[in-house]
Structures are given as C-alpha cells and as structure tokens.
C-alpha cells in the first residue's frame, strides 16, 4: 500500500472511531432515558402525588418525599443564592487581580467538584451532632453548600460579560459604586445569573449523598423542619435497593420525576443563556 493510501486509511479509521465514540455517548443517554420511561411511566398516577410512601406490600405514593425534596431545595436555593451572588460580585467587581480573589476563585472551583458525601459528613459534624438529631434544616444547609459554588461561578462569569461601557456610563452620571452594580450591572446580567441559579437547583434536586446523614428519611408526612424529612433521592435509594416489587416500582417513578425535572431545568437554563448572549 502506498504511503498516501495508508494515511488515508488511518484517517478513515480514526474518524470512524470518533464517530462511534459520539454515537456511544448519545446511545447511553437515550438508553437511560428510555429505561426510565419504560419502568417509570406505568407507575405514574394521581396516587403518586397524593399518597405517602407505603409500607412494603401496601399501596401509596411519594407525596411526602416530593414535598420534602421541594421544601429543602427551595430553602437551600434561597440560602445559597445570596451568598453565591455576593461572592461572585466580589470576584468580578472588587477583587479583580487581587490575591484574595484568585485564592477564593481557586477554592470555589474545588468546592464545585468536591465529593458531595463529604459535605454531608461536614454538616453532620457541625449541625446534626450538636442538635442531637437529624433534621430537614441540616439537609437544606448541606444542599445550600452545594448551591454556593455553582452560583459564584456563573455570577462571576456573567458579570464579567457586562460591557465596561455600561459601568463607565453609570459612574459618569454620578452613581455610587453599589448603585452601579445593583441597578445597572445586575440588571444587565440578570438572565445569566438566573441560569446559574437554575443550574444549581438542577444540581441539588437529585443529590442523595449529602442528605443521607442530614435529613435522613421519614416514612410519614412531616412538615417539621426540625425533624427528619422524607425526600425523593433517599426514598429512591431505599426503595430501589429493597427486594419488594412495589417499592422498586415507586423508585422508578421517583427516578423518572427527578430526571425529567432536572433535564427540563437544564434545557431551559441553556435556552435562556443562549438568548441572553444573542441579545448582547
């Protein structure tokens, strides 16, 4: 075979392999979604949203777990977002080029990928042990700790995208720095910052590991934030690992609910982000 022929052959093989790699990645995604639909859809029904988790062999739904997940996610987002936004503001507006800012940025990126189970251990040590019992508050705090780095990252990136001309124009009009940031920069970057918060919600909605040692689980409906609270991920974990067919069915239904919610949030966030960049 000529050199030219060999090079063309190598090229064709490598390109084919890269095509196969992409096809495999997409295949896995569709396989997972397909499995969830096949197992989860038959379990859908109004009982899922109105009845609480049953004992083995009984009939029931996931109402208490859905309630718990929503409540803890909302509390965690409300607590984590301001911390993330203010930190991101410091990094983008005040700390540019300063040593503190680069250290914070570095540590934030590490927290972004830190194992979530370690966050659970941390909150167990600082909240569950002193309080003497598991609680929904502890669960919400551990989720909030996961929200913060996501929001810091996107806030900083979005504020940096705001054109310097806007800052200068507002400053030239005599606006003090805080007013420039709150009334002009935040408004310009609002869509992007919203994307960050949505991605953070999507990230914590399915987090299981940090809740195992903090919110624990609850077989019953309990609105008390100071007590263990049922939540979808831990219920899925417990039910899927159980030998009971009806529990496993509920686990599939819960898995389908969480995945659909998270994928919708993700796609929506990306759509908002791409629109906000397009308008600038």
């Amino acid at each position, binding site marked *: 075979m000529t050199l030219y022929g060999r*090079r*063309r052959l190598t*090229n064709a093989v490598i*390109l084919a*392999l*890269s095509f196969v*790699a*992409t096809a*495999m*990645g*997409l295949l*896995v*995604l569709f*396989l*997972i979604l397909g*499995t*969830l639909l096949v197992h989860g859809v038959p379990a859908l029904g109004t009982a899922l949203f109105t009845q609480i988790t049953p004992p083995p062999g009984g009939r029931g739904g996931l109402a208490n777990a859905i309630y718990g997940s929503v409540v803890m996610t909302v509390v965690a987002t409300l607590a984590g977002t301001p911390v993330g936004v*203010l930190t991101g503001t*410091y*990094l983008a*507006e*005040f700390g540019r080029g300063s040593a*503190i*800012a680069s*250290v*914070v940025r570095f*540590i*934030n990126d*590490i*927290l972004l*990928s*830190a*194992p979530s*189970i*370690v*966050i659970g*251990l*941390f909150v167990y*040590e*600082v909240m569950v042990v002193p309080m003497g019992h598991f609680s929904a508050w502890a669960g919400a705090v551990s989720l909030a700790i996961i929200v913060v*780095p996501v929001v*810091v990252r996107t806030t900083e990136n979005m504020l940096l995208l705001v054109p310097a001309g806007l800052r200068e124009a507002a400053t030239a009009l005599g606006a003090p720095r*805080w007013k420039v940031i709150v009334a002009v920069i935040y408004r310009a970057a609002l869509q992007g910052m919203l994307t960050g918060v949505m991605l953070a919600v999507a990230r914590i909605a*399915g*987090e*299981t*590991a940090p809740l*195992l*040692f903090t919110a624990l689980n609850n077989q019953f409906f309990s609105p008390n934030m100071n007590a263990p609270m049922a939540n979808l*991920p831990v219920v*899925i*974990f417990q039910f*899927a*690992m159980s030998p009971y067919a009806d529990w496993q069915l509920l*686990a599939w239904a819960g*898995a389908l609910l*969480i*995945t659909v919610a998270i994928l919708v949030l993700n*796609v929506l966030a*990306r759509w908002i982000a791409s629109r906000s960049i397009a308008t600038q």
Partner: protein
Amino acid sequence: MTAIAEPTAVRGRMRRQRLADALFRNTTRAFAIGVMALLFAVLGALLLGAMPAISAFGFSFLWTSAWNPVKSVFGALPAIYGTLVTSAIAMLLAVPVGLGIAMFLTELCPPWLRRPIGTLIELLAAIPSIIYGIWGLFVLAPVLQMTVQPFVVDTLGNIPLVGVLFAGPPLGLGVLTAGFILAVMVLPFVASVTRDVFQTVPAMLRESAYGMGATTAEVVRRIVLPYTRVGVVGGIMLGLGRALGETMAVTFVIGNAHRVSASLLAPGTTISATLANEFTEAVGDLYAPALIELGLILFVITFIVLAAAKLLLLRLESRDAK
C-alpha cells in the same frame, strides 16, 4: 441661603453614599472570605471528628484491611483500593471515548449539529448519580453479567498474569461494573473540557497543517493534541476528581464487600460507598470516627487531584492570554 445649604446637603449625601459603598464592598468581601473559610471548616470538622480513630490506629489505618465493627478494628485499605481501582477503570474507558467525542465535535461534525450534540453529551452530566445507580443495578449489571463478563472470563481470564484480574464467577455486581458506570458519568466532563480546549487552537495553525496536506487525524494528533496537552490533562484530572468522590451510583453496583480482591469481577467497596452504607448505622466509639477518617482521606485525595487539574487549566489560560 440655598447657595450654602446645597453643598452641605450634597456633601452629606456623598458621605452616605461613600459609606454605602464601603459597606457593600466589605459585605461582598466578607462572603468571599466565608467561601474560602468553608473549605478549611470542612477540613477542620472532619479532622476533629476523625481524631479518635486517628489516635487509635495511627498511620496503619491506611494499609490494614480489617473491617470489624464488632471488635472495633478498622483499616482503610479495601476502601482506598476500591476507590482507586474503580476510578482507574473509569478513566481508562472514558478518556479515549471523551477524546473521540471532542474530536468529532471540533473536526468532523457539521456546524449546525455541534450545539445540539454537545448539549446532549453535557446532559449526561446533569443526570443525578442515583439515576445512574438504579440504571446500573437493574439494566447494566445484568447485561454485563450475561455478555461481557463471561466473555472476558473465557478470553482474558486464561492469559497468564492478566488472567487473575478476570477470574471468578461473573456476578454482575462488582468493581468492573462500578468502573463502567463511573466511566459513563465522567465522560461528559472529559468530553466537554477537551472540546473547549480543542477550540482554543488558533485556526491559523490548524489550517496551515491542512494546507500542507495533513489528514484530519494527523492534524488532531500532531497539531491539536500537542498544542492543548496541558488542558487535556487538566480535563482528565477534573473527570478523575469526580470519579473518586462519586457515591450513589457506585454504592448500587459495587457489591459492598470489605476486601481487596485481585479479580475485577469480585465485589469490593469504595470510600464513598462505605460511608453511604454504614455511616447512619455506625455505633461505638471508633466506628463513626473511622468512617469520618475515610471521608477525610477522600477529601484530601480529591483536593489534590482537583487542585492539580485547576493549576494545569490555569497554565493553559495564562499562555493563551499572552
């Protein structure tokens, strides 16, 4: 009168604004420092919680493999071994596939398809760990047990030296299955970081190579990869950091056995799976501290890997800025 009154009013307002400015700036800085302190608080809390175990077992905790809650004897070796081996399998599988996807997206894919396909691959990263776990347990493990595992037992299992890795009955659950699941989970991280760094290659370099008659494969191997080497390694390390700390998916499929087995088909455990399974049931003076020490070890390992990844990616950035 107004001529005198106005400046004082203005001066008063100026002072208020300056005060508000300082307040705002310091508040944001306080929160930034708070985020920084969080890392040290995590480290401190884990260290404090692990203290009884650290003083009881010393460094031998790291290389002994006893795990006996009844007798309060604990060793971290099986968990550390499982964590490293599952992550190694995951990277072995995910890196070539991730590079392939990045190459497809930057070199081969028609431009109008780039965004949709890239987004779909990134959505793999959005699927929660627990979903991978339940999928791995009910779908992947039986499939591996029926097809892949008997095949490797019959073929690779007979080769001397390598055979030890693939000995034993195909159980479906075990270290190899956990590695497979982890590979799928880190794939989107490797693929998207690699794609992003591939895109930093100046069009001029790429086009010069094409102009000299290089094939696409040659451009990627001789131009793109050398140019982005640091970034690609950074992306791989980022994926590794994720794989090391992954909890739920592994807990479902690894089989949870505290032992070091030569065979990859045997059940094992990882640090995070041990924590997820045992922490809430840990009673006794040393059980919980031993588990917290495991968490501390995990945190330190992932910290080192992630910090290295970040430094490599920063180096690439600063080079691009020049």
